């Protein structure tokens, strides 16, 4: 466990308490069953914002608390435990990071306090196909008379249905740049993707969307900024996955300790003890790499890219196995929709894909390390 300061411990405990009391898995089930396109409960998100969670990486001058990524990671871990459906990772982590890292004073002023308060929900729109390929961007941003004209389609944008601001990666003459695209601008259409995790994902079509000069975030050659933003998104996602893995493990352990077959609890079978011991061991490794990556962001370390890929690849593999074992070790009951095991495996696979699957990050880790 990373060395937390008193404020971080308080934050984590508060998050844990709120999540367990106000947003248990049954709250996610309710959101799912309601069939909402939005994919989350706006009241719950408002409560999270009111507690300051959405502004954790946003400077105080713009309505945040500048509390750092390790702190946000603690919250994401807790919300991950019970699969809290909210735009926290999209808006308060990915999009906020882009603005904090690349925004001008006026861009920050225009958007950050809205994001922190939860009134603005922002999404990061990078990929253009079903796999994470940030080097394959075909969306074009062309200079027009008094600004920019953007055309292209972004796929599987998280919170794409409800977002009121998109941060869109688009090809410019100089490279790839990030652009601030309001959700209600003319020429932007959304097509909902109904996915297994019952959260909001949508394709965003930009048909010659006309924007002013101030739409460009950072420079026209913004690949380095995009990388920094993506690494923050990856690390935060890994923290959410850590929470999911922990809860999936705990739920399974509790089950094995209570389910009786052959006149004894399943927990007493050595074959299962060893399975759980392995999962527990994997989770310890996962925690180390996730915390190291979060700390690397806060410390501004130059090896963040390697650590981010290490964290995301490890998180992907560990949660992948955990989510499978959760079903398997529950037996028949784990196959039912009434049980929550299915929620974990469905969300797990979506997050495994988001911002790079394991083979993407193994390859990136190797390349960055000079293998």
């Amino acid at each position: 466990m990373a060395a937390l300061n008193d404020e971080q411990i308080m934050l984590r405990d508060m998050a844990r308490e709120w999540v367990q009391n106000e947003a248990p898995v049954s709250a996610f089930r309710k959101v799912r069953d309601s069939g909402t396109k939005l994919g989350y409960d706006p009241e719950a998100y408002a409560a999270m914002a009111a507690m300051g969670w959405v502004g954790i990486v946003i400077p105080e001058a713009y309505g945040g608390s500048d509390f750092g990524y390790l702190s946000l990671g603690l919250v994401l871990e807790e919300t991950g435990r019970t699969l809290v459906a909210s735009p926290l990772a999209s808006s308060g982590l990915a999009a906020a990071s882009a603005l904090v890292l690349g925004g001008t004073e006026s861009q920050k002023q225009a958007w950050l306090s809205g994001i922190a308060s939860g009134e603005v929900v922002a999404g990061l729109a990078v990929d253009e196909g079903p796999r994470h390929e940030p080097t394959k961007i075909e969306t074009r941003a062309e200079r027009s008379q008094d600004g920019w004209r953007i055309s292209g389609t972004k796929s599987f944008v998280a919170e794409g249905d409800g977002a009121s601001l998109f941060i869109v990666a688009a090809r410019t003459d100089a490279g790839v740049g990030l652009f601030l695209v309001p959700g209600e601008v003319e020429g932007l259409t959304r097509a909902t993707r109904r996915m297994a995790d019952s959260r909001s994902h949508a394709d965003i079509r930009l048909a010659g969307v006309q924007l002013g000069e101030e739409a460009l975030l950072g420079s026209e050659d913004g690949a380095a900024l995009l990388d920094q933003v993506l690494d923050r998104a990856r690390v935060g996602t890994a923290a959410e996955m850590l929470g999911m893995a922990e809860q999936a493990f705990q739920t399974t352990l509790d089950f094995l300790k209570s389910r009786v077959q052959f006149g004894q609890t399943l927990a007493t079978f050595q074959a299962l003890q060893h399975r759980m011991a392995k999962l527990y061991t994997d989770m310890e490794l996962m925690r180390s790499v996730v915390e190291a990556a979060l700390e690397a962001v806060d410390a501004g370390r130059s090896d963040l890219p390697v650590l981010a890929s290490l964290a995301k690849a490890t998180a992907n593999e560990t949660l992948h196995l955990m989510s499978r074992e959760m079903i398997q070790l529950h037996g028949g009951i784990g196959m039912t929709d009434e049980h929550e095991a299915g929620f974990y495996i469905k969300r797990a696979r979506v997050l495994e894909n988001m911002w790079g699957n394991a083979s993407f990050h193994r390859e990136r880790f190797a390349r960055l390390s000079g293998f």
Partner: protein
Amino acid sequence: MATALDTPTEKPLDAFREEARAWLETNFPKSLEGKENAFLSIDAPAQTSPDYLAWKQAMADKGWGVPTWPKQYGGGSLSRAEARMLAEEMARIGAWNPIGGMGVMMFGPTLLEYGSEEQKQRHIPPIARGEIRWCQGYSEPGAGSDLAALQTRAEDKGDHFLVNGQKTWTSGGQWADWCFALVRTDSTRKHEGISFLLIDMKSPGVDVRPIRLISGSSPFCETFFTDVEVPKENLVGPLGGGWTIGKRLLQHERTNLSGGGRLAAAMGRSLVDIAKHYVGTDNEGRIADADLRQRIIRYEMEMRAFTMTARRVMEEAKGGGVSTASSILKNVGAKLTQERAELTIEIMGMSGLGWEGEMFSESELSATRSWLWGKAVTIYGGSTEIQNNVIAKRILGMLDHQ
């Protein structure tokens, strides 16, 4: 399968192949080519298209839905070699067996072995014709892996049994006409207190409640028995002899489930094709993602090894029917089925996680659903862990007291 029941015919094999080919040519409707749904026979309501019905009728009349079962009960009385040829000829033209389900896979072979002449006459022909659907009433809330802990009681009331209790995970329970059930007829003895009973699902007091799966479908049920009267003649084998019969049936189930592997193979396009489509290739034509490519290679190799093992086991069994190798085959087949599904959705990326709607293709949506559904294959029919216990204890002799 059901090889112990073969009644070999005398015809030369080549002649048989020609006969089969000609007959299939005439009778298999082209419209059904390749349209087999491997899960359908258990987990969905019956099909009703005219071509399907005609095909089923033809196969039923010929007895080839259950090719190795004796003719007198509606089977084809084919030898194993002939049955294999028939299967090959069917596969060659994309034909498939329209007669299946638990009656064919598990209950029929078991009843042929343990049933009275009267029971066989009554129950086997409708299975052979695909007219009656059977479901398996084994598991209960408190009796899964520990099946012998089952509590559903059948009380001897003189001319009938009175059945009370609850079964669960009853696949196809809502569509089944009959249920073969393990019930407790003696509560003082665990295994010897179990009997094998046939229950008409239309009997008063039988209630089913479908259970929704993580894949979204509801192919199985909780089944409740409340004062259900079951005629004495529906007891198979001796009173208290249900455990032996029930276990034999499970061996048939496993052998067929190891078809899990077959099932994986039948699940459509090759992984390599899907990967080339979604991931693309490098300039030497290799799947562009080297890491993924390695894992596809491993899967394909293991699949080949599995297929060879299944064939070798069958040949070595020499008419001995199901064997202890059924545990190995079940585990490997189940593992490969899941491996393939995980690889498929990984290859498709986010597109492999669609739930519904027009933003995904049919094949993408079915990839998601089969991936989720497939998580069951390592659980039912005796879980992977239980098969491993069987392998360790029964095959390797690694016993608890040693």
